[in-house]
Structure formats: C-alpha cells, structure tokens
C-alpha cells in the first residue's frame, strides 16, 4: 500500500471521546456499545476474552490487531453471528446478548463481511432493496397483493438509487451483483448496509483486497458515514488507513484488548508494538518518523 491511499479531503477528527486515562476498557463520554466479560473459546483456544470495552458514539473506531487476535470473532459475537461462552453487552442501552443476528440488525447495528457477501444472482438493485427495513411485502400473505407494498417499494427504490449514485454504482443497477469487480462488491455491501438506516455500521476489513484507487473512495465513504451521524466500527490491518480516518483505536492481541487511544498515541504504546512484533517486526507500523524510531528502539530493546 502506498501513500496515495490518503482520503481526498482532510478528515475532521472527533476528539475528547473518553473519560480518564486512555487505557484498555476506559469509559467513554457517550458509548453506543458497551461489552462486559465477553469470552469465546474454540476447544482449548480462547479466541476472545474481553473484560470491558466501550465504543464511542458518532466517531470512527478502528479495531486493530495481528492475525488471530480475535477481531472477527468479537465482531461475530457482537452481531449475533456467534454465541459467547460468557459475557453481556448493550447497544444504545438495550441488552443484546443472546439475540439472533437478524434482530441485532433490525436494532440498527449492521455489519459487513470480510469475505464480501454480494448476492451474486440478484441484481444490484435487488441487493439494495433487500437492505430496506420494515417492508410490508416481505410477509408472505401481503406479498400476494401488490397494493400492500408497491408504494413502499417505489420509495425504497428511489432511496436505493440515491445511495447508488453516491457509490457510483447507479449505472450498474440492473446488472447481476456477480458481474461487479471485487472492489465494487465491497462498495455494494456498504451501500446495502446503508439502506437499513443503521446507527452503528460494523465493517469487517473493508479495505481487504481492494486496489489503492478504490481504497481512497472507500475511505471517503467511511468518513461520509460519520458525517451523516453514524457510528463506525471497523477492523483493519493497515495502520496507514487507521491513522488517517480513525478517531479512536482499540488494539486486540490474543483475544484481549491490550490498548486503546487516539490513533497517534496508541501506535507508540509498547503493548501495541509487542502485539505486532511477532509478524510485523520488519515493517513500519505507520509513517510517523518519530514513532518509527521509537518502534525500532523498542524492538532492539526486546531483542536484547
């Protein structure tokens, strides 16, 4: 990845999100999602073991960590796609634990997937319309009589075109989603999630496998979500992007939250360097030169 992946406009960062020290599990001024004691193990392996974590409202929070840190597992737990061994969490003050995935989504917490799940043999428009909430025509008995749902369908269609235009997919609306490129599918998945008018958008590796030019537009779209008042939580590997768009960073390693904080601060945190050392010792973690020399020193110290 190179530097031309910087968003076209300088993002406005949200600050002053936390109360007290920026440490793992610290309190937020206005949390949208609060999780307590969430753990999940697969056989002998504890994939997730998070004591306490809060996601700040109206900000972009990045969830980072090396491979196998449990980021996606935590995502699956929070969205109801997996059941935890222990733990509870609330979303907008309402308890969510044990709730099936479709109910979580209806409450306004919508996710995307690491491996894009575009519905291939549906048109782009049908993909979008599927995202709309509370459709009368999705009831089998009302589906028989179009007058129950045709008006709502028209409204949803207009809204879908509006969103597709923003994502520059409007010319593709009658094509099968399977005919889109990998990056366009990522865009479609994000656009589809927006159809449900979510309050929290959870993006699992939105930039994975996307070319640099498209990454830039994806980053712009993520910043737009925030501008429209949505909260974003995303998983990412690439520190450059995290640094540019995230207001808050949560670092996971071996299933635990090891650090939290402002993106610039958190990358100087020794716990973060430790977490990445195993696989990223010969890569820079960011483009901040002062942070970099510190990393190198930290690594040297550890090697001695």
């Amino acid at each position, binding site marked *: 990845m190179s530097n031309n992946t910087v968003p076209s406009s300088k993002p406005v960062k949200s600050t002053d999100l936390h109360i007290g020290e920026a440490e793992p599990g610290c309190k937020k001024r206005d949390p949208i999602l609060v999780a307590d004691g969430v753990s999940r193990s697969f056989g002998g392996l504890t994939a997730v073991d998070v004591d306490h974590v809060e996601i700040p409202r109206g900000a972009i929070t990045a969830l980072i960590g090396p491979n196998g840190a449990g980021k996606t597992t935590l995502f699956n737990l929070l*969205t109801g796609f997996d059941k935890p061994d222990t733990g509870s969490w609330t979303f907008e003050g309402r308890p969510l634990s044990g709730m099936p*995935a*479709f109910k979580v989504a209806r409450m306004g917490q919508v996710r995307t997937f690491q491996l894009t799940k575009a519905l*291939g043999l549906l048109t782009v428009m049908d993909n979008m319309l599927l995202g709309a909430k509370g459709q009368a025509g999705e009831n089998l008995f009302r589906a*028989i009589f179009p007058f129950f749902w045709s008006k709502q*369908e028209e409204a949803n269609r207009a809204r879908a075109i509006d969103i597709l235009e923003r994502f520059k997919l409007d010319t593709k609306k009658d094509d*099968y989603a399977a005919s889109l490129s990998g990056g366009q599918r990522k865009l479609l*998945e994000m656009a589809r999630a927006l159809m449900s008018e979510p309050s929290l958008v959870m993006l699992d590796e939105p930039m994975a496998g996307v070319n640099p030019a498209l990454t830039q537009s994806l980053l712009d779209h993520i910043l737009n979500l925030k501008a429209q008042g949505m909260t974003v939580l995303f998983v990412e590997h690439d520190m450059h992007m995290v640094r540019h768009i995230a207001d808050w960073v949560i670092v996971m390693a071996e299933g635990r939250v090891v650090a939290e904080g402002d993106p610039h601060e958190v990358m100087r945190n020794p716990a973060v360097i430790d977490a990445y050392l195993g696989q990223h010792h010969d890569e820079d973690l960011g483009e901040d030169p002062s942070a970099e020399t510190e990393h190198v020193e930290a690594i040297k110290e550890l090697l001695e």
Partner: protein
Amino acid sequence: MIDWGAIFSNAAVELISPTTAAYALAALGLAIHFGYTGLLNFGQAGFMALGAYGFAISTLSFGFPVWGAVLVGIGASVIFALVLGIPTLRLRADYLAIVTIAAAEIVRLLFTTNTFQALTGSANGLSGYKGGFSDLNPIPEGRYGFGPFEYNEYDWWLRIVAWSIVVLACLFTWQIMRSPWGRVIKGIREDEDAVRALGKNVYSYKMQSLILGGAFGTIAGMIFVLPRAVVPSNYQTSLTFFIYAILLLGGASTILGPVIGSMVFWVLLSFFSGFIARAVEAGWIPFITSIQAGQLRFILVGVAIMLIVIFRPQGIFGNKKELAFVK
C-alpha cells in the same frame, strides 16, 4: 410396419394428462425449494405420498367430504415440513437433503407396512375414494373432444381441475417471487448470512418456503392418484428424481419451466416407449425382448435429459446470463 400415428397420438395424450399436471405441480413446489430458496429437498415423493394417503384415508376410513380430505392432506404435509425443518433448517443445505430423503422413505415404509393394513391397505394400496370428486363434476355424461384428446366426462373434469390448479399455482408463485418476499427468498439462496445481517429472519423464511413447496407437492400427490389407485411403491425415491429431472429440464428458478418440463418429459417418455415397443415387434431391434424394451425408455429419456443438461444447462426457460457466474 410401425404405426407412427398411434405412437404420436399416444405421446400427444400425455401433453394434458393429469399425471403430467401432477408432476408439473410437484416440480413447481421443488422450484420454490431448490430453484428459489436453495433448499435441497430430496423428499418431494414423501410430500406427494402424504397428499395421496391423506386424501384417500380420510375419504375411505373417515368419510370426509372432498374439501375435508384435501385439508387433511395439506395439514399432514405442513406437519411433515415442520418436523423436517425444525431440526435441519438451521444446518447446512446438505443435511436437509439427507434428512428429507430418509424421511420420505420412512413415510413410504409406514404406508407399506402390514401393521396399518386396515387404514393404508399395505402394499396393495387403496382405491375407491374418487366418488366425492366425481360427484362434483358438472359435465354431463358422454364423450367429448377430438383426435387423440377424446375422453369421458370424468376424465375431462379431472383434467380441467388439475390444470386449473397448476395455472393458479403458477400465477401465485410468479406473484410472490416478484414481491419483496421472493427477493428475500432468492437472497437466502445466494447467501443466507448476508440476508441475516440485513435483519431478515432467515429460518422463518426457509420454513415458509419448505411448507409452501411441500403443500404444492401434496396437492400434486392428490392429482396423481385421481386417475389411478394409491400404491405405496409409486412413492419411491425415483419419483423425487424424476421431478428433479423435470425441474432441471425446464429451468430450476422459473415458473413455466416445471410445467413445460413435465410436458416434455412425459411426451418423450410416451414416445420412446411406444416407439421401442413397436420397433421390437417389427423386428427392428432383434437383440431386445419386449420386456427389456419397457425399461429401455428410461435409458433413452435419461440420455435426452443428459443432452439437454449438457447443451442447455440452464434448462428450457432458464436465463443464460445466470450461468456465466456459476462458481
């Protein structure tokens, strides 16, 4: 010399026969399951058996009127769908395939066993349940029609009812599949996790699909037994496979596919069996006995279906564009 006229007119008869209608309706149910929802139901024969026996037993043993007997059959298939679906619809698609194939066999063996002979007639099956249906016939006695399509009043009544049901079922399926409900169903076929992430209760939709397609199979089972008797050996797994053949022939996620597929299937079957039987009689195929000839028709139909699937894999009505993206 071969009597081509007889072969062709026998084949043409199959075009509107009630059996063709029954297979078309069963295949339409399977299109809802497999073509639209992606549920691998290999137990359509079980749903048909429940329709046939539900109708026959409630008429013969309990003296139900026609509408009551129809409701009993549909009720039985709804319960069957729930019993199949509750444990398996949460699992991957292939589990449903295994469970449905086993459940359909259990149903058939229950109807075959001697234990319930008083009700089911065991291996001999049931007959004499058509009185109520033919009493409803408004057509006066006599023979009607032209050419190969000349029948008495009962046969016409049966054909009219059977094909009316098929037409209504097609219109109903067409309407729901172009509604938002159908969109969710097709989404589930593509990727159920994605649909779940958009706030749809996938499990409930799959259950609705299983019940609806099963009910179509059940009504097909009733139509199937009106021109003949109820015999348990008709409901073997091969029946399900014939219906799958019809579905793939016509196009799996189409409305007209199952109907035209069923017509093509039965006309071809009748044509081949007529042709081979007469060709053997005429000494054209000296190495085959007339008994072997009876079986050869299935081989030829199999070859014809293979050719269609190889050279037109989307079926007769399927959309060629869809195949460009099949993984």
